[in-house]
């Protein structure tokens, strides 16, 4: 039971708003000590795992190219495009993006879009511009801009999570096949991915409904 101390530390630390990096270190230390390791052994175990997980941070390799494109005016171009295409409302933009993200993820193309490469430089500025056009202002208020951006980021995650499991060779499907095999049950990846389809449809309907509601807020009556 004592090893759960680390989990509690993480939950409490994040809830109180301590710096998450320190919370993670404290939690790793508490968990390791509770499992009978010495502080140095915990540090070594943590260092080993940190080194093995470098691919997580390798994703930041995309920052320089996105930075150059932003300096060249990509965000402004995205906003300008929406300003000209009056028929692209916030709801239509986000619904199309959700469908695109789910459909491409279902084909295994999970890394063709994402928070750094699509949401920040293209989709979020477009969504803000679409809201501005809809509500008849030159630029959305800062608070609304924050809500729009957070909603765009959420839409990317939801599209990714509830599309990727339809693809056969994605990590989670392989994990399930391997786990079941260890337990003496043989399933085809196809059987697992087929059962991801009902939830994917539900995700589109639920989040799509929220997109429509978000787009209808505070819209000036004609």
């Amino acid at each position: 039971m004592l090893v759960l101390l680390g989990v509690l530390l993480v939950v409490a630390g994040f809830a109180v708003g301590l710096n998450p990096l320190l919370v993670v270190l404290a939690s790793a230390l508490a968990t390791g000590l509770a499992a009978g390791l010495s502080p140095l052994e915990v540090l070594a175990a943590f260092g080993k795992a940190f080194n093995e997980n470098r691919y997580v941070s390798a994703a930041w390799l995309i920052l320089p190219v996105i930075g150059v494109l932003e300096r060249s005016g990509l965000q402004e171009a995205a906003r300008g495009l929406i300003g000209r295409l009056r028929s692209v409302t916030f709801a239509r933009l986000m619904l199309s993006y959700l469908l695109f993200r789910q459909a491409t993820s279902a084909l295994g193309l999970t890394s063709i879009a994402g928070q750094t490469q699509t949401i920040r430089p293209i989709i979020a500025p477009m969504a803000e511009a679409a809201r501005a056009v809809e509500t008849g202002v030159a630029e959305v208020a800062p608070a609304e801009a924050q809500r729009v951006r957070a909603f765009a980021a959420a839409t990317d995650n939801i599209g990714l999570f509830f599309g990727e499991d339809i693809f056969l060779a994605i990590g989670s499907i392989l994990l399930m096949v391997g786990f079941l095999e260890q337990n003496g049950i043989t399933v085809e990846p196809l059987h697992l991915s087929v059962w991801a389809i009902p939830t994917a449809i539900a995700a589109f309907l639920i989040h799509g409904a929220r997109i429509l509601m978000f787009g209808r807020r505070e819209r000036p009556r004609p």
Partner: protein
Amino acid sequence: MIGLTQVYALAGFVFAGFAVLSLRDPSNPRRVRNALFWGLFALSFLAGDRLGDLGNGILVLVMALAAALGLGRSGTAASDAEARAASARTYGLRLFLPALMIPLMVLAGSLGARHGGPALAALVDPKQATLVSLGVATLVVAALSVRLFRQPVLSPLTEGLRLADTIGWMALLPQMLAALGAVFALAGVGGVVGETVTRVFPMDTRLAAVVVYCLGMAGFTVLMGNAFAAFPVMTAGVALPVLVGRFGGDPAAICAIGMLSGFCGTLLTPLAANFNLAPAALLDLDDRFAVIRAQVPTALALLAVNTVLMNVLAFPAHP
């Protein structure tokens, strides 16, 4: 063969560039700390395998302490809005082309390494094809964009640093959480949580067991930050013995929908930092949890739907 080593070396050089630029930026009062942070990140990517486990532990400890003390933002790359707007007017839709090239190159690279025959497979490690393609794509597209849009040669680094400073210490959190997951696994945290769940919650009826499994997958994912950690524990503890063993459910449907219930938990947890917290930093949101807040209604509704779907779809019609 091009594999992880080369991609890590590229990342190491980029982060080393961030460190040098940070150090040489007089407008950043915390330039030494920023340089230390990115310098150690570079060291980890260039020489992590030679530092030893304890060496890596000390490295991440120093990085986390430096970052927690607070990093500054560089001021060198603050390109003015006027110039960006003028560039957007000049190049217009052409600006989207490089942005589209990245995914296309990643797609072509990962498909090519897997299905492109032995020559390509010998050149690129097929298991790392996506990351290698991403590395190549970023290099090519950055060079192309500098040329097409007449940007300074160093702008990929200065502008990359500007974005990196927007993310700040959050850039380190996803990898640290991945390492924490490994420590949790080492200490057997999963097994203890699984035992507790199966002991505490009654699973006398099929519906109760379905609810325990779906909510357990989501809740456990919230605590561990990742559905993959929750899946083996909850499935071995609840799904296989009770849902499949006692109530005769279809293991494929139960596991697939159970995993997706875990994904609902991923939408709710700050521990899935790369999905939930890093974007908030990247988009300059004041509320660190703004993305999670935007996801809560969808995640909870979908979790309820998953529970119903499992109860309806995963069992034979007449038990």
